[in-house]
């Protein structure tokens, strides 16, 4: 199994989730994150002075999927989360060893 972690623009979350559902991926865990990257954050104006907000709000999606569909998942995310502007985010993938469903104790493929 693979862990696919995607860091995406906040307003893309719903679209990505729907796209994943449509390829049969129904489980995922999302956390709020702050991103630093090439996009140097935005500026806000506070009483006449512009200043830098260093971080940009992002959502981080954690998805554990079977090896067989990993590529499809990655492609789906890449396509849906893409706006073509700097700051669209990244996807990181690594192997995981075990997955367990707490409710039933089922393991690995069965647990997803």
């Amino acid at each position, binding site marked *: 199994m693979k862990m696919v972690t995607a860091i995406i623009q906040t307003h893309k979350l719903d679209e990505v989730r729907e796209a994943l559902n449509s390829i049969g991926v129904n489980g995922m865990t999302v956390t709020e994150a702050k991103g630093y990257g090439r996009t140097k954050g935005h500026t806000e*104006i*506070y*009483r*006449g002075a*512009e*200043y830098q907000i260093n971080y940009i709000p992002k959502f981080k999606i954690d998805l554990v999927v079977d090896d067989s569909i990993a590529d499809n998942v990655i492609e789906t995310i890449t396509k849906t989360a893409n706006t073509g502007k700097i700051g669209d985010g990244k996807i990181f993938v690594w192997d995981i060893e075990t997955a367990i469903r707490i409710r039933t104790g089922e393991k690995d493929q069965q647990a997803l």
Partner: protein
Amino acid sequence: MFDSGDTAWILTSTALVLLMTMPGLALFYAGLVRSRNILSVLMHCSAICCVSSVLWFALGYSLAFTEGGAYIGSLSNIFLLDMARDAATGTIPESVFFSFQMTFAVITPALIVGAYVERIKFGAVLLFSSLWLLLVYVPVCHWVWGGGWLADMGVMDFAGGIVVHVTAGISALVIAIVLGNRSKFPDQISPPHAPWMVMVGAAMLWIGWFGFNAGSALSAGSDAGMAMLVTHLSAATASLVWLTIEWIRFGKPSLIGLVTGTIAGLATVTPASGFIGPIGGLICGLVGGGVCYYCVDLIKVRFNIDDSLDVFAVHGVGGATGTLLIAFLALESMSGVGLEEGVSSISQLKTQIIGIGSVLVWSIAVTLAIIYITRRLVGLRVESEDELEGLDYKAHGETGYNL
């Protein structure tokens, strides 16, 4: 014996002016700091409210409002020992006048909080504010409103342009300079953590200000009515001025900008509110909004002084501006109440300048002395690590948001 309508209005005004500090100003300031300092700001305002109330009762009121000399009143009414239950001030009970004035003594030192947030010791807040109330506010209050030398000279200050805003504004600037900038000022400063809270505080200040200015008429009649009207117009106009400047300059008018304009308009109209007519209110808003906007830039960007929440630029400058405008806007031709018999705009302007100038000098000198004492006795600034981690937990053992 008393006029019940006048009394009803000043009782109400007292509640309104207390609302300005608790929780109006407290929220206005708390929303502007980082989330890890929100409680410390609320604590500053609350504690100052309590300490000032007790000191006003113990000493301040007597020194400010009993007859004494040109420079200070007497001790004859400390702890209100000299006040009968049914003593009168004009058409209202003296107890009501005392309480109304007390709410002014509460908010004035609390205004200064904006200059030293996020880095001051809590003990220093209490000591500084106490001394400042007794040594800056009380004497100036006596000079202008207690029958002192500035009153004799004919200085006009209806609801506290000099007494409240100039004293607090200039002292804020002094303590901001002495204390030094916050560690990340100006480059890396965090944005206001809760602009919505700033707006709520501003709205309460606006409403409370009706009590501040229209209550200063000490009666419920056309003076109060006109004071409320011009107060509102100035607030609304200055808000729009600020909004327009930001829109033109940055393309995006901000909520914090708009409400900062509101406060600028309110501070500006304060000294003039009892003397001017509707058009005067509009002019106070136009001038006050513009001048204060410019001064925020000047102090923070040009002079690089971390008067963190712009107490001087908004309150000090606004209050002074309004004080000067009186000389023109109080004219009967402007639907004002008119100047004293035989006084021209120019001569009134001179009087006003003397008023502002002398209070400026006194405030700076005494504030410096108080800072010196405070630094010796309890120290001024927290450790830089505490500043980084936030005063809420470090000074008060609490955290603002546990969601």
